[in-house]
């Protein structure tokens, strides 16, 4: 089998249990849809209490949907090898003839499917409960920016995954730490400019910040109070996607070698 075919088959094989698992275990569906809606609703109600404009409520809804992808990148990509090592599967992945990058690509594909369910549920609540209106200037541009954002995010997730090959329990805590501070800096619930110039500039290094800001500008125009023109944000996302994927391939190869040499691929509960 040639290398491309092997890569594609391994990626689909890894994506399969994530997609089928969602259907076979219905309680996951509740966890994936109802629970995230509750937190998003709480933030939306804060804006309603403050009689804030509808656009800010819409920001919360869009931010909630994109949060789902960030969480998926962190927990189901970044920390996944940590769980796999704990359940004894990581050794099998490394022994298999498929490259680890293909396994990660499969996780990303399956993860995107799982997370789309969550994101759609959040958007549905936004549309039907909070009366949010989505009228993008261009659907094509919107989907393009969304896809580019996911590419950059999941590339970053692959870098995390390779780093976590070397780590033990601290991986779990680091992933935890990358939640609230990133929500804060990405301006998921408010225009990034609210952070002030210095913080907003630092935040622009995160693909989530730039992606969400571009999506908002395409959806809400002037009301989005964008950080920079959409064209610049698209360019930043494209550079980030290429850079992250290249870095992920390199770090995965390097750290896998190191993890083998230090015997970290099969250590559990540490």
């Amino acid at each position, binding site marked *: 089998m040639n290398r491309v075919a092997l890569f594609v088959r391994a990626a689909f094989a890894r994506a399969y249990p994530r997609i089928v698992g969602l259907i076979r*275990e219905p309680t996951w569906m509740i966890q994936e849809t109802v*629970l995230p809606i509750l937190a998003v609703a709480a933030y939306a109600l804060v804006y309603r209490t403050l009689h804030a404009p509808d656009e800010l409520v819409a920001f919360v809804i869009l931010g909630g949907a994109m949060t789902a992808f960030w969480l998926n990148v962190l927990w189901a990509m970044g920390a996944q090898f940590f769980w796999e090592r704990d359940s004894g599967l990581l050794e099998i992945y490394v022994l298999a003839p498929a490259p680890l990058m293909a396994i990660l690509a499969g996780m990303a594909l399956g993860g995107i499917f799982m997370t789309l369910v969550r994101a759609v549920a959040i958007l549905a609540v936004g549309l039907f409960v909070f009366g949010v209106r989505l009228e993008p200037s261009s659907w094509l541009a919107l989907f393009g920016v969304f896809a580019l954002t996911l590419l950059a995010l999941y590339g970053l997730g692959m870098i995390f995954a390779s780093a976590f090959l070397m780590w033990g329990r601290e991986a779990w805590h680091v992933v935890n730490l990358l939640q609230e501070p990133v929500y804060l800096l990405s301006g998921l619930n408010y225009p990034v400019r609210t952070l002030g110039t210095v913080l907003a500039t630092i935040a622009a290094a995160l693909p989530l910040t730039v992606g969400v800001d571009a999506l908002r500008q395409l959806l809400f125009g002037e009301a989005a109070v964008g950080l920079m023109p959409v064209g610049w944000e698209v360019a930043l996302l494209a550079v980030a996607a290429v850079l992250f994927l290249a870095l992920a391939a390199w770090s995965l190869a390097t750290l896998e070698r190191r993890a083998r040499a230090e015997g970290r691929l099969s250590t559990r509960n540490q």
Partner: protein
Amino acid sequence: MRSTLAAFGRSLAQGFWLGWQIESNWARPWLFALYTLIKPLAGTLLLVFMFAAAAHATGVEQPGLLAFAFVGNALYMLVGAVSQGMTTAIVQDRESYGMLRYVRVSPVVFEGWLIGRGLASGLKAAIGAVWTLAFGLLLPFGLAELLSPTRIDWVALVLALALGVPLLVGLGLVLAAAALNMARHGAFLGEGVGSALYLLSGAIFPLAILPGALQGVATFLPPTLWLETLRRAILHRPGPGPLEAWPAGTLWLALAAASAALLALGWWLFRVSDRRARRGGRYDLTTGF
């Protein structure tokens, strides 16, 4: 009776010690301290920036409501932490470390040990909450004045915190009882119920904004009563919403009754669930998903 209480206390201390080690010994102390402080602070600052964005859009600053949400959000961390600590202990010790069965057959008082695990998580959250409230003194939007330590009714605060312990433990026992007979995803139960209560306890917004029936249910939830009692102690005034008109005595009485009832319910449910788990062989269950 005395020896039973002593055994319970020892088990609780052992559970607490183990829980604290799991929470803290993965990193050097300075890194752990940083982690404990940054995460809760970021979560609460998110709200501050939301209020700033709304103030910019409407031209109206609402320091009273910000203080209400700021205090509610900081203290709500305790609600999630204790119950999450207890459900995670069940699932993690059973499925990841494979030690739950050994703990169950050892001479510890199992409930005491589990409560200790939850309280260790609670302590970490409490450190984060105190730090967040202290950081509020440095923030603009009128928070510094509203959160000033001189305004706090310290006696009421300590009493409310003490009454909250059985409430949080009761909630944790209810969820741990459910997780005991669930597969691996039972670990998310704490998180899920935590999210629901975050919405329904009015942690970050006055309950008056909720639709009628939901508001009625939310008003009488034990965490709602607890947060209102704590807010009154810290901010020295009732929060806006359906509990605003409640006299202090009624609120205290309702909180005490709710805490006692939840603890009794949790204890009973956990006993029932424990019997069921032993019959069903759930203590050494490895579900793998």
